[in-house]
């Protein structure tokens, strides 16, 4: 039997309580069990290092934010544009989609050194890596979305003698938006991953570089703080996508 939905107050209170219980046991249970601070620092220690080195974290947050955002925009835009080309030309799709598919099977970690070789050590390779990660899910979702109008919807437009561009703007594109947004949600997290992976391999700036330096120097509190910051960045991007989605898709 399906369970009754929770009352709204509980639906908000329970996740907060859940998180609080985890933080509470992290703070008090782990030290009591004898887990050393250099493996798992307590939440208050992590928060403390945040306060202490706020300037350091902010100066490393900026590059990652810019790389992730730029990669997000470029990768998704490229995915959308290529999807538009593919759905309008079956020939091009048949010729090049398998190659894109093959390209996508290369692990991003294996691809990153090549991208850094090509683009050097600045921000550009990180943006490219973030863009590459975002590109493929958006391409696939967008192709499916643009093709998702039903036969009778296409017939309706044909009866009205609609042009190809009218079919695109008034039927295919709005039909594709829900699927585009579901891949943008995924991309909001992966763009940050891409930027951090890029910084990991070759950079002295950014949250990725901070994570690597902190782990080499056994600065666990700083390492954990950098992780919290990266995930907050992903969550912020995700929230922006969801907000835009709610404004655009009302049905």
């Amino acid at each position, binding site marked *: 039997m399906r369970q009754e939905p929770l009352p709204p107050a509980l639906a908000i209170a329970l996740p907060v309580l859940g998180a609080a219980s985890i933080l509470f046991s992290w703070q008090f249970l782990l030290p009591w069990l004898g887990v050393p601070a250099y493996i798992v620092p307590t939440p208050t220690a992590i928060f403390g290092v945040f306060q202490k080195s706020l300037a350091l974290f902010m100066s490393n947050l900026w590059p990652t934010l810019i790389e992730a955002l730029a990669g997000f925009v470029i990768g998704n835009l490229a995915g959308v544009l290529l999807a538009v080309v593919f759905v309008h030309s079956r020939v091009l799709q048949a010729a090049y989609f398998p190659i894109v598919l093959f390209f996508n099977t290369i692990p991003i970690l294996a691809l990153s050194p090549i991208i850094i070789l090509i683009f050097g050590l600045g921000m550009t390779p990180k943006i490219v890596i973030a863009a590459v990660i975002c590109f493929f899910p958006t391409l696939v979702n967008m192709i499916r979305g643009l093709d998702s109008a039903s036969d009778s919807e296409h017939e309706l437009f044909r009866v*009205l003698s609609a042009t190809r561009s009218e079919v695109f703007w008034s039927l295919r594109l709005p039909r594709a938006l829900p699927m585009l947004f579901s891949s943008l949600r995924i991309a909001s997290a992966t763009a940050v991953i891409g930027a951090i992976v890029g910084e990991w391999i070759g950079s002295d700036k950014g949250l990725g570089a901070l994570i690597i330096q902190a782990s080499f120097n056994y600065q666990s509190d700083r390492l954990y703080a950098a992780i919290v910051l990266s995930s907050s960045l992903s969550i912020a991007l995700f929230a922006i996508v969801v907000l835009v989605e709610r404004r655009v898709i009302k*049905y």
Partner: protein
Amino acid sequence: MANAIEASRLDVGYGGRQTAVKVLSGLDLTVAAGSFLSILGPSGCGKSTLLRVVADLLDPLGGTISVLGDTPHAVRSRRDVGFVFQDSTLLPWRTVRDNVRLPLGVGQGSLTRTIEDRSDELLELMGLAGFGERLPHQLSGGQRQRVAIARALLGQPKLLLMDEPFGALDEITRDRLNDELLALWRRTGTTILFVTHSIAEAAYLGERVIVLAANPGRLIKDLDMRPFKQDGNRCSREDAAVAAAMAELRGALGQAS
């Protein structure tokens, strides 16, 4: 112009001219302008295909067809034909009014006449006044189909093609929409081709009912309903004469499938 549709030796199929699977074979059909024709038949008999040829959505393989004295293509370009599908095909991101207005927004480039925005009038006609700002998912199935009819009527078509438009509705809603459609037909004088698989619906609506058989689709029964009805294509669903006509149609359908 006496006839809305004149088709002779019409062959329609899918696939190439040589390898085609024939859906309609050697169909001869004449439909008088202003009449209400019901098209009845089992699945795969080509009744929807026939509508698609008339609407210029599909080219025949052989034979000739003229619609309103012209080619199907010319008629489509003039927007003289309206099409109502089984699923309402309302665009879910547009409000009801904007769905009705869709014909104003697309295909204007090839249009040879101007179409007025009669959306308010049509929404009122279809009993949807006050629903203009709703989104399709906020409507019932019957209301959505009313919106689809309003959209098809926006360009004041001379020919209305309806492909099982009420097939997915419950019986009470369906009966009500049948009556509304008849009232609409009497008022506008539009020629209507109405595809259905319901014998009762075909007999109640049509001035004339044709039955198609499958594999390949061909005409096996052509029944004039006017002798069974009162003036103006009026009858009651319980009428004995109409019941007799339905029995005749049921017999023909039995042979068809």
